[in-house]
């Protein structure tokens, strides 16, 4: 039941918030905040109550019939991986509500409705263990996200929103086709229609078919992730979205892609995934380098941060397909930390844009002298982004690289050079926006307490993840171990 609550609370609160906005905007905001916070607390309770031994199996489960003829069930289940990602979801969700407190003034009710429904969709993605339900939730995230970008976005929002929608929808449909193919292969083998994850695990299939189906899933997740070549929706969407949208896109939506790889691509199609792994790893490394190079070339702050996501998620892709315990855990760690650090950067850039009405670095400079706390926070998260040891991102990336070295020395070295590239853009970001002379004489207010609280929470989270990540690592370790066991020849 608690799992259903996790999804229902934001759904209902979304409708409530919309309705409440008619008579009070702050009521609407508080409803949204409280709902997400309640969900966060629920996940914390779940985290606190699990026993270390129970981590290997589902921690909680909920299961109802839906369309029984074809084996479609409303089946939710939770393990360590999904638990952590859910915590991240509601953590960032609450922060994005806070970050939009002053930014959004038009259509407040509808905004929070969309925000909460996206969170519900994401929670559904992380919880679904029926492939139909998974696809349902996967698609459910899109429309509200689309609205978030298209209505509250910046100058070029319509283009960005439509591009985002079409990329994800097309790739999602390919995944649906793959899901259906898998179900029919399973049906032919067993005579039973089932979309259940557990049933479909270990379906025997001809190698060619397995590869095609794997590609169907892979493309859908690679678009979300995003892997290079399929990434071009991301900079546009991230740049044009309002702050909350960017935070959720970068912090959560991209993670659903990685989650899908871990949950579905590797376990369902181990052989195809193993033979495809070299290409996927190469894509990951190419993404690391290419994303960093592009980030270095940008002058629009949000675009810059967006391309850093391409780079960081390259590590995730690499780590997933390296497919050994080090790299897998590193990939998940990177997912979590990237969510926080990049989310924080987007909040900061949003706060800055709110104050000076531009995202062009050429029109900035010397912000530090007028808003030191904002600039200091930006420096901190830029450092997290460039992989400074002691902060969370480093742990993840180092583990990925360490694992990758076992598979391929060349790729690991190239990826390590990607970390070097991160220095370029991160320092460029700090230098051009916050340091240098204040030629345009900006006089802006520093972070207000609400924003300061958001930043402080994220800084603490990253430091904690960087210096004492063990509780987090231990939570998803059994899940990763199981995925690791599925690698062929192990």
């Amino acid at each position, binding site marked *: 039941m608690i799992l259903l609550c996790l999804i229902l609370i934001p759904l209902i609160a979304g409708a409530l918030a919309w309705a409440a906005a008619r008579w009070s905007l702050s009521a609407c905001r508080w409803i949204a905040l409280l709902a997400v916070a309640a969900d966060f607390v629920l996940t914390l309770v779940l985290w606190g109550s699990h026993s270390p031994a129970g981590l290997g199996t589902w921690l909680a489960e909920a299961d109802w019939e839906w369309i029984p003829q074809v084996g479609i069930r409303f089946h939710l289940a939770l393990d360590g991986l999904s638990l952590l990602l859910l915590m991240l979801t509601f953590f960032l969700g609450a922060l994005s509500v806070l970050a939009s407190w002053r930014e959004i003034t038009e259509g407040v009710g509808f905004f929070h409705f969309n925000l909460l429904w996206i969170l519900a969709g994401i929670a559904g993605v992380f919880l679904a263990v029926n492939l139909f339900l998974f696809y349902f939730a996967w698609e459910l995230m899109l429309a509200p996200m689309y609205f978030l970008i298209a209505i509250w976005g910046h100058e070029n929002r319509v283009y960005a929103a439509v591009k985002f929608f079409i990329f994800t929808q097309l790739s999602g449909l390919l995944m649906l086709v793959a899901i259906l193919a898998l179900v029919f292969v399973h049906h032919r083998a067993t005579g039973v229609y089932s979309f259940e994850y557990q049933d479909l695990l270990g379906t025997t299939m001809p190698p060619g078919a397995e590869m095609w189906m794997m590609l169907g899933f892979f493309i859908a997740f690679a678009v979300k992730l995003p892997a290079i070549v399929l990434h071009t929706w991301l900079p546009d969407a991230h740049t044009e979205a309002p702050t909350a949208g960017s935070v959720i896109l970068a912090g959560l939506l991209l993670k659903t892609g990685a989650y899908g790889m871990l949950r579905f691509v590797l376990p369902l199609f181990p052989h195809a995934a193993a033979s495809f792994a070299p290409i996927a790893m190469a894509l990951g490394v190419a993404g690391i380098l290419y994303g960093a190079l592009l980030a270095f070339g940008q002058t629009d702050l949000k675009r810059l941060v967006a391309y850093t996501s391409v780079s960081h998620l390259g590590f995730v892709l690499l780590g997933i397909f390296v497919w050994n315990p080090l790299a897998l855990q590193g990939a998940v760690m990177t997912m979590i930390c990237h969510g926080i650090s990049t989310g924080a950067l987007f909040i900061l850039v949003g706060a800055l844009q709110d104050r000076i009405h531009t995202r062009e670095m050429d029109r900035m400079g010397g912000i530090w002298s007028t808003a030191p706390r904002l600039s200091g926070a930006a420096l901190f998260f830029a450092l997290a982004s460039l992989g400074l040891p002691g902060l969370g991102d480093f742990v993840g990336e180092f583990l990925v690289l360490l694992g990758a070295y076992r598979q391929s020395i060349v790729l690991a070295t190239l990826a390590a050079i990607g970390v070097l590239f991160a220095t370029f853009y991160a320092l*460029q970001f700090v230098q051009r926006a916050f340091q*240098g002379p204040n030629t345009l004489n900006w006089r802006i207010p520093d972070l207000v307490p609400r924003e300061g609280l958001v930043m402080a929470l994220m800084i603490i989270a990253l430091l904690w993840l960087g210096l004492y990540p063990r509780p987090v690592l231990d939570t998803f370790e059994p899940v990763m171990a199981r995925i690791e066991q599925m690698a062929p020849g192990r």
Partner: protein
Amino acid sequence: MLPLLWLVPAIPFAGALTLAVLGPRMREKAAAVIGTGSIAVSAVISLFIAAAFLTAPPAAGAYTQTLWTWIDVGSFRPAIAFYLDALSLVMMTVVTFVSFLIHVYSAEFMRGDEGYSRFFAYMNLFVASMVTLLLADNLLLLYLGWEGVGLCSYLLIGFWYQDPANGLAGRKAFIVTRIGDTAMAVGLFLLFHNLGTLRIQDLMHAAQSQWPVGSAYAIAAAALLLGGAVGKSAQLPLQTWLPDAMAGPTPTSALIHAATMVTAGVYLIARTHVLFALAPPVQFAVAVVGAATLLMAGFSAATQNDIKRVLAYSTISQIGYMFLALGVGAWSAAIFHFMTHAFFKALLFLAAGIVIEALHHEHNIFRMGGLRNELPVAFWTFLIGGCALAGLPLITAGYYSKDLILWSAANSTAGGMGLWAAGMAGVVLTSLYTFRLIFLVFFGRLETAVSHRPGLAMTVPACVLAFLSIVGGFGKLPFEALLATALPQFREAGGGMSEALASAAAGLAFLAGLLAAWYAYLQNPSLARSAAANPAGRLLHRFWFSDWGMDWLYDRVFIRPVVWAASANKADVIDSIYDGLAGAAALCYRLLSATETGKLRWYAAWIAGGSVVTLAIVMWL
């Protein structure tokens, strides 16, 4: 006492945190008390620890303190743990103590600066990172400290952020050292992959037992670590960042870019000496890098006109000596030189800082002169520091340490006379540029009026360091005895040079440099000018002045292509694929919608045509 070890990095870290959070609202005094006080406590604790260590050495000569397991993934279990042996003890004590002096100095030097508390926050963070680096029990924690000091170096070089040049210098420093760090990171992967641990002591044992001398793994691992070391220690070919790093406040230059951080590479090699011993070619490369760097930097130092840049090149050059020592297996000689260098180079920077502040932030030595009487403390301390740097025989600390290195180079199995000759040439150069500096700044006519005289907080640390720059050398024998518990003895090759001969040669070289400087800059100043004026001289001067053109080269070969590629591809060429698809769809739209003419007969023709096509398919298939 030893269990308090963790406090040595923790207290400065706490200080940094306090200053970062509360600093902006603090008054200068409070910030200075916290900033300096935390280092003082840390220094005192490390002195106590040193005393405890010396009086009651722990078993096996090392003490390990594990705080918590940092990461735990399968067999990869690095801990936040500290390892104290003679080597790290010496380094830690020197670092905290010198840091303390420089903090005291800064409390006055930075007075009135807008970012006063920020400065101390960075400096404290630096000390915390540096001590972590030195005490790290595993390479990952070492890497944390390593990157941490790099970060602080970057932050402090660009401390006066409003001048873009400072920011540029900071970025250059960070990026260039990070190039080395990347190599080092790959080295870490290699070591973990092949030896299954990152704990330094375990690694050394495993390497010794698993890899034969000259094994490819050992060579690769040592070479990659060397990459990290040359980056951090500003050795060839990654030395170009250090001269630019002088953009930071002078205490920063003294602490980070002279006394402590830049010698981290030396420490790393000494710490992992087993690997280098297993990889003779790499160890020889260390010596060659050191020798080449000390010569190149010496020539460059002799042509600079910015007082801090002269000192920066001299730092590069002196670290070259340490590398030379490491390369020939004289481990403790390198560490000994590290210590004396920390004293006298910090001293030189502090004295230079006094001069610079006295002259309204004037850096050009040709606009200085005759300050001997105006700034007596600065003059005497600078003179002592300069003599130690140049190696004034018998009195100064620098003489003893450098002499030891030269003798080792001459007598090593790997080195031989070539390395020794390079070292000797370096001594001449060192003496030349040092006294050039002293003569130009403190002798001759008064060029710029003195506007500001240093207070006690600035002069006392300088005097203490001056004292240490002299007496530091006398502790050579106990020092070597102490380090022998952590580092192997130097192995002398038979039939080399005797110690007396080497000392005499070094003394002569010192004199030669001194005389040359005296002749060219005091006796006959036109000589230097005319030498620099003739075409060949000008060319050479420009070449040396610009650090042998390496900046220029790197700019053309690495920086511009990357910047060009990034800016040329700003719009992401991959996106044009999708733009192309969208364009194709729009084209199809235009073509197809042209068929919707609105004319009835045309529509009827379509239906008839469609039916003909259908018929055709049916009939001919």
